[in-house]
């Protein structure tokens, strides 16, 4: 590459900015339509409505109500399920078992992570166990659970604990390890040690990861529960949503099967968007730890 011997001289220049009042737009509020389209909830609602319309149209076109009930028939079955009290009862049963299994899983995860934080062998234990068991689907343990605990809640609890424990423990542990050295030093500087250090520094600092673990754990537990109920259904005359779906399938009440599935989805959405979303807004979003 050759270089010019001299830079070509260029004239200097100045500009005169015109007064702001002479502009057409400096700042102007967006129109209602622009703002509405910015709203994620509205966009998603539009999508949902379109999907429901597509479903309704397809079901009418196929016209085999036994296999593909229309959206309106599903809604009607759902409404009847609710008003008759069957669906709320089954849901309540499932949710109760779910909460029991979920809390047991979290409690065990807490103990395991506490071991992992305090000792190196505990870390090795957690890493080994979770790499062994995390890829193992909870449902695969169901036959074993039935052998050990028989039909009923203990079996459900066993598979649910399995599905909650590993993701929660794994995420919490990796969250703890990712806490910056500076923050750790600040905590020590303030005179925090032992359990107080964990509670006041490590847990809040790792909260984004912990929350992710809790979310994954919840989704796993919910799926596992419904699937497990489908497999061995009822115990002592009671049953949850999975059993509701199974039962209605046997009676060829296909709209009710769809209504049961609908209910599973609704609860999943509700927990994700109401519970976890609010926790997120109040914690990690507010603290600027997650955008």
């Amino acid at each position, binding site marked *: 590459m050759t270089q010019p011997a001299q830079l070509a001289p260029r004239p200097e220049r100045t500009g005169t900015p015109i007064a702001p009042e002479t502009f057409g737009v400096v700042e102007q509020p967006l129109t209602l339509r622009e703002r509405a389209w910015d709203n994620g909830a509205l966009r998603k609602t539009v999508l949902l409505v379109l999907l429901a319309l597509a479903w309704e149209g397809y079901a009418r076109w196929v016209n085999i109500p036994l296999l593909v009930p229309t959206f309106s028939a599903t809604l009607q079955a759902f409404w009847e399920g609710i008003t008759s009290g069957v669906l709320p009862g089954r849901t309540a049963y499932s949710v109760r078992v779910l909460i029991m299994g979920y809390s047991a899983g979290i409690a065990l995860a807490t103990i395991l992570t506490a071991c992992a934080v305090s000792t190196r062998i505990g870390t090795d234990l957690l890493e080994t166990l979770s790499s062994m068991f995390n890829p193992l689907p909870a449902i695969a343990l169901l036959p074993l659970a039935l052998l050990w605990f028989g039909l009923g809640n203990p079996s459900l609890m066993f598979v649910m604990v399995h599905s909650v424990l590993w993701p929660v423990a794994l995420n919490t542990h990796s969250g703890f390890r990712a806490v910056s050295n500076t923050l750790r030093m600040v*905590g020590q*500087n*303030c005179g925090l040690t032992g359990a107080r250090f964990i509670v*006041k520094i490590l847990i809040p600092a790792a909260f984004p990861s912990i929350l992710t673990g809790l979310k994954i754990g919840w989704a796993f537990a919910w799926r596992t529960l419904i699937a497990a109920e489908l497999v061995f259904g009822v115990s002592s005359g009671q049953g949850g949503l999975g059993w509701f779906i199974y039962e209605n399938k046997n009676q060829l009440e296909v709209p009710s099967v769809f209504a049961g599935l609908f209910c599973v989805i609704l609860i999943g959405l509700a927990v994700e968007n109401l519970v976890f979303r609010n926790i997120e807004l109040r914690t990690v979003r507010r603290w600027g730890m997650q955008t």
Partner: protein
Amino acid sequence: MRPDDGPGVLLDVHGVTLQYKTRELLVTATYRVGFQVHQADRFVLLGPSGCGKSTLLKAVGGYLAPVEGEIRLRGKVIRRPGPDRMMVFQEFDQLLPWKTVKQNVTFALTAGGLLSGRAAEERAAQYIEKVGLTKFADAYPHTLSGGMKQRVAIARGMAMEPAILLMDEPFAALDALTRRKMQDELLQLWDDTRFTVLFVTHSIPEAVTIGNRILLLSPHPGQVKAELNSLPPGDGDPVAHKALEDRIHRMLFADQVEEAPVPSGGRES
């Protein structure tokens, strides 16, 4: 107390050798470094990157034990971190992101059991006002600029009223204009309260501005090269400043200039 401890000696670093391990290496960071910090000193540790000055500060903080020599604060050997040696770090993430400005300062006071309830809040408010952040007392750290975060960290350190404030290049990550402003503010704060500060920097102008006493460390492993008196604060004489800066520059980099032509130095950089 050591017999050679003068009456005003607050921190006595005596023949300290520091080593730390990385994955492959055992690194000697400083070799037999000694200095004494007096009450109300603005003591600066100055040296090029890798001279072990930050490691030395961490040892004074109690995060690292010397392999040789000892560090005494008011005659007591330092063994672990503690609230009598509050540290201000270079990193902006030293504030707890889940606490507001005010809660960050209060947290330090209550966590160590120094103060509680109203007393802690009043003390926090007082020091937040000192660094001029009263308007932002209820803001979360992620909404603040880098300079403001460092001010909060300084307020937190000072609110504990430690025996000595340890500052590890607190202004290094700031832009040049903010850095100048923060240096002036720090001197202003010192004028108000006359705290003792041990300040680490690799910037010669900053050392001359901030310090009243400057310890020069040689590069890797750090050894004492000189201990100088700086100019009085607020001394507007740019010529004296420049002269001192040049002198320090020559002292820090002299042997490199002389060594450079020697071919068989065998030195790794």
